[in-house]
């Protein structure tokens, strides 16, 4: 059942594997699992090629600094793409260019429309994550497990915002 070539594992096995990743994160990097800070590291670096003055913003300078924590997280999210790619290749679970659920959820099969929604969604997703100071990983997995009150509030808000948006804007049939 845990074969690397199978198309799906139990959600519980995957959850345990993800939870165990806190061990190397805390022992080796002295931080918790997270993902959204890396967007500031990479985004800030890219923006600085066009506008070097962005590096004078403390928030950006802190995130692009060549520290282990900053670039460990960039490497982590890059690794996620590699791991998913290898896993998909091993199982043969090839994906179409756009998930078939979008034609129904958006009420349109137009790829251009989906790309526009995806871009806008990505934009507000990271703006919100940085405002909240964490995402599904940093607040959700790590903050909740550390019993951080702010993280529990943030996770409740995430699901409330997600459920309200999905029920209001996305179709079910």
């Amino acid at each position: 059942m845990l074969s690397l070539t199978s198309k799906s594992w139990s959600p519980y096995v995957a959850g345990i594997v993800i939870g165990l990743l806190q061990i190397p994160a805390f022992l080796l990097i002295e931080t918790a699992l997270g993902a959204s800070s890396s967007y500031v590291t990479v985004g800030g670096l890219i923006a600085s090629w066009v506008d070097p003055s962005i590096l004078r913003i403390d928030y950006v300078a802190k995130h692009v600094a060549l520290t282990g924590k900053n670039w460990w997280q960039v490497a982590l999210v890059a690794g996620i793409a590699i791991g998913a790619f290898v896993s998909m290749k091993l199982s043969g679970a090839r994906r179409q260019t756009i998930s078939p659920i979008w034609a129904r959820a958006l009420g349109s099969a137009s790829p251009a429309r989906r790309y526009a929604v995806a871009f806008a969604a990505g934009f507000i997703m990271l703006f919100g994550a940085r405002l909240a100071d964490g995402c599904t990983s940093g607040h959700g997995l790590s903050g909740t497990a550390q019993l951080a009150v702010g993280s529990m509030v943030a996770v409740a808000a995430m699901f409330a915002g997600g459920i309200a948006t999905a029920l209001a804007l996305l179709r079910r049939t």
Partner: protein
Amino acid sequence: MPLFTAVLIGVAMGIVFGFALEKSRVFEPGIIVGQMQLRNFIMLKVFFTAVATGAVVLAAMHGFGYVKLAPKAALYAADIIGGLILGAGIALAGACPGTVLAQVGAGYRDAIFTLVGGLGGAIAYSYAEPMLSKTFLADGAGKLVLSEMLGIPYWTGALVLAALCTVIVVVLERIFPSAAELGRDVDGDLPPRGTATHELQAVAAE
């Protein structure tokens, strides 16, 4: 630790993370949107299992004095407003900031747009941060940890949390069996409601 070593550890951990996201199918837009539409619970099952596991390992590592915890400060206004915006983005992206990379890796082209939009959102926030940090959004209660507020050791609170998560997951599995939530192409694209459960399970077993 040298930067290079930290990056190598990051890539190795990311590959394991990406494998788990892909194999559990929780990275699928169909699963994430289905969760937000309250008709597919694989996302919450993975989430609560990962939280429970993380809480147990942190309880052990912290209890025996191997690690220091790193909880984020409670900034209620920012946590709530930012969380709501982030949640809206997750529903429309069908991804979260970590899983979008798994979508790119597995070959979803729209995820590249989500990723680029995400970098744009992070840059926009970076420009706004000096202004926002002077508003009520920066007001908070400091690092509030539930176990400290209750006057119990962290490890006790963490084990209670793990137990609660386990109960939630057992109940979720009872009500929403995972085998019926994957769909024919393991992407969470399920037949319309009203299809008999045994037919869904037959589809999942193929």
